[in-house]
């Protein structure tokens, strides 16, 4: 006997009614839930975007971009005839090393964790549901970065190889590069600018 069927004649009338009631109420609630989740998501996307844009993306981008810009300018300066300091070759090598290490830093290496997103994803895993959605464009980008890593590993023996199987750079590495950049500026006789 299938107790799940609301049309089971042999079931006690009260059980049948309960099952039917549950089925009907679930149906209406689920339709509402589905439409609510879509509306709720759309209502909050822009708010989330603006928050992430101004709160994390812009300041972090400014920080990394500023270091890269300074490294590029110093590298070009050391290469130019304008630079007449002693030990120029060593400074050139240092400028190249800093610029190259900074170029290797990715957004995902330095972005702080989104703890709320992680907590919510864990709730979904506990409920055995699908995980938190990821934007298609970001998904594609992560895929490309994965491919880049694989290529870097394949060419790890070549002199121009990137990271090989080394771990990805962290914010601590960026801070260390910033210090090296300041030291380079000082050795070139330039005042250290704002960070």
């Amino acid at each position, binding site marked *: 006997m299938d107790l799940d069927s609301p049309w089971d004649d042999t079931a006690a009338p009260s059980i049948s009614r309960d099952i039917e009631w549950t089925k009907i109420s679930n149906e209406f609630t689920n339709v509402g839930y589905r439409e609510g989740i879509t509306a709720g998501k759309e209502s909050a996307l822009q708010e989330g975007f603006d928050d992430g844009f101004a709160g994390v993306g812009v300041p972090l981008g400014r920080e990394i*971009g500023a270091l890269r810009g300074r490294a590029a*300018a110093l590298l*070009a300066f050391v290469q130019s005839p304008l630079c007449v300091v002693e030990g120029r070759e060593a400074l050139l090598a240092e400028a190249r090393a800093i610029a190259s290490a900074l170029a290797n830093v990715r957004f995902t290496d330095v972005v702080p964790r989104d703890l709320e997103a992680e907590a919510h994803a864990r709730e979904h895993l506990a409920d055995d549901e699908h995980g938190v959605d990821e934007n298609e464009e970001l998904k594609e980008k992560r895929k490309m970065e994965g491919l880049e890593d694989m290529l870097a590993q394949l060419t790890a023996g070549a002199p121009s190889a990137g990271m090989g199987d080394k771990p990805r750079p962290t914010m601590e590495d960026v801070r260390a590069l910033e210090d090296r950049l300041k030291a380079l500026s000082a050795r070139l006789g330039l005042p250290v600018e704002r960070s």
Partner: protein
Amino acid sequence: MSQDFDLETLVHLEQTLYDSGYQEGFAHGRIHGLIEGRALGREKGFELWEELAFYETFALTWKTIYTSLGREEDKTRKAHHIRHLLDLISQFPQVNPSASDSELDILKLSRQIQSRYRALCSTLGLKPSNIRASEADTLDAAQTNVEPVWKIENDQTMF
């Protein structure tokens, strides 16, 4: 128990169940919207300002270099490009401008910044580098006719 009461309850039952599901779903959807929007906003803000800050400190560093060399070149083309480049970058918003207060043409400003950066590189005798993010945005916009503000698609309530 009156017949009227029962009928009224039944009439509203469907709506009540729907509403309760909707509210629950809406709250859950908001969490997802905030998370997904935040992830995209972080990435886009980073892309845009990583490039702009690159130009900014590139220009500032060259300004410092010339100053420290005792070559105040205020009237040269280099100084002119540096000044204009820094001025253009200072106009670029660091928060997402809403449609109401956005008379700003972001794409136009991006293009002006990039061409000014190229001009500076040219006077310095250097090959421009790091032009990336906003150029891609320009292409996207040209291909899809998206409004030139940072807007998440498929939502008419935004901006």
